[in-house]
């Protein structure tokens, strides 16, 4: 079995390597346009150069920072609003139709009014990111709070817990798995919107770098930017999966 797994792993690597090699050869012999598809080697060289000269860090950090602030704001507001909607019938009646209308709205459509009110600023970008990234957290938090085990409610009543204690000691841990899963989806959206705002509003960051590389037809740089964003998305997703597992250890023990 172990050998079979290793064979498959080798097969997968060979397949990816063959694709890249094919690309390299086609690009070297100019069978595909080097402007549209620069060879993988040129892209890697460019990426290594950027890392070696330290050019990549400033835009990388700027994008990460913007994404993180927007995401944190979305998570905070999403959890609070979700808790209100999930645990109070009144809040749901008043807010749900409005949220149902806002949710399908493309987050990037908020950019023009956001520019109107906040200008081409970092605050504008963070507002747009927060608006787009709030929905997964909000929905999962509302769902988590709405589905507290009825028996836990009875226990809370029997123990004469106050409403706040019920929230902190039972509702929040109960809703946590949903919220963390929602937060992971939100982070992917936040990264996308960070890139969008950088492109549209000329905020410094990887998104702007890619656009500038395209404008000056420096395609290896363009590909290097896309690759770094892909790696970033991959690493962030896996980091959050690890955090999720860490926080939810108690579940596998009790289950």
């Amino acid at each position, binding site marked *: 079995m172990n050998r079979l797994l290793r064979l498959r792993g080798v097969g997968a690597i060979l397949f990816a390597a063959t694709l890249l090699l094919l690309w390299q050869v086609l690009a070297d012999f100019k069978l595909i346009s080097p402007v549209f598809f620069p060879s993988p080697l040129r892209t890697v060289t460019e990426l290594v150069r950027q890392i070696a000269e330290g050019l990549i860090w400033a835009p990388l950090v700027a994008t990460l920072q913007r994404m993180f602030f927007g995401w944190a704001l979305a998570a905070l507001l999403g959890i609070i609003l979700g808790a209100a909607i999930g645990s109070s019938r009144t809040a749901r009646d008043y807010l749900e139709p409005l949220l*149902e209308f806002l949710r399908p709205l493309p987050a990037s459509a908020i950019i023009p009014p956001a520019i*109107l009110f906040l200008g081409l600023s970092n605050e504008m970008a963070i507002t747009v990111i927060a608006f787009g990234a709030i929905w997964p957290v909000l929905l999962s938090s509302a769902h988590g709070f709405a589905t507290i085990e009825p028996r836990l409610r009875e226990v809370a009543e029997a123990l004469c817990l106050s409403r706040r204690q019920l929230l902190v000691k039972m509702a929040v841990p109960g809703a946590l798995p949903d919220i963390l899963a929602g937060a992971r989806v939100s982070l992917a959206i936040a990264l996308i919107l960070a890139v969008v705002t950088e492109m549209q509003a000329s905020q410094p960051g990887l998104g702007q770098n890619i656009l500038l590389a395209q404008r000056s037809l420096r395609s290896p740089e363009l590909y290097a930017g896309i690759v770094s964003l892909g790696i970033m998305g991959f690493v962030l997703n896996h980091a959050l999966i690890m955090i999720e597992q860490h926080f939810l250890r108690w579940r596998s023990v009790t289950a």
Partner: protein
Amino acid sequence: MARRLHGWIIPVLAFVLWELWSHAGTFPIDTVSRPSDIAVAGARGFADGSILLATWETIEAALFGLAIAAVLGILFGVILGLAPHLERVVGPSIDALRPVPSVALIPLALLMFGFGLRMEASVVAFASVWPILLVTIAAVRAIEPRLLEVARVLELSFASRMFKVVLPAALGRISVGLRIAGSISLVVAVTVEIVLNPRGLGYSMIAAQQSLRPDLMFAQLLWLGVLGWGLNSAMKRALDRWPGSAVPEEQP
């Protein structure tokens, strides 16, 4: 019934306050506009057809991209679903592409296709192919093995095996992937327009904002909201009727 009305209170109140406040002297009417002006701008936009034209341009690109994504996603999904060994070899390469944010490809698409429908559709296709592909692989894997055995015993040709057994059996689940891809496609189309493609609703919103027509911009924003909401609920209703598509309810 009274409960349904509660949902209107906050938005209506907001619009009324906005209108009233806009008649006060210090209100920055040039940048923020007021609800009555927005209604007039919206009515004009519909009357001269400019909003409908922009809407069609956006939907055209979204549908074009979605169609490419559906063909590629279902084709490769069926192949990879029927051949698990192949999937294990190709899968990691696909997984490596997936975390790339679709919007990062906007400059690349611009480089290849220039401004216009094709670059927008290509970005939409890249963004919406993933849910279709993944759902199709899972759907084909979940087909009752005995159905495939029957197809083999009947010595059906490849084409009739596809169209008489595999696709009908998997279509219910595939439709779930199509629905997810459908809402992604509209969002991505508008995003591409907002960022740089000079066509469609996204671009006309940015253009209205830059030419100091906040009334028109807000009218288009509201229209976009109505459009997204309408498409969302229409798709939900259509797929609820579709047999075999147990759409997991995302609402709390």
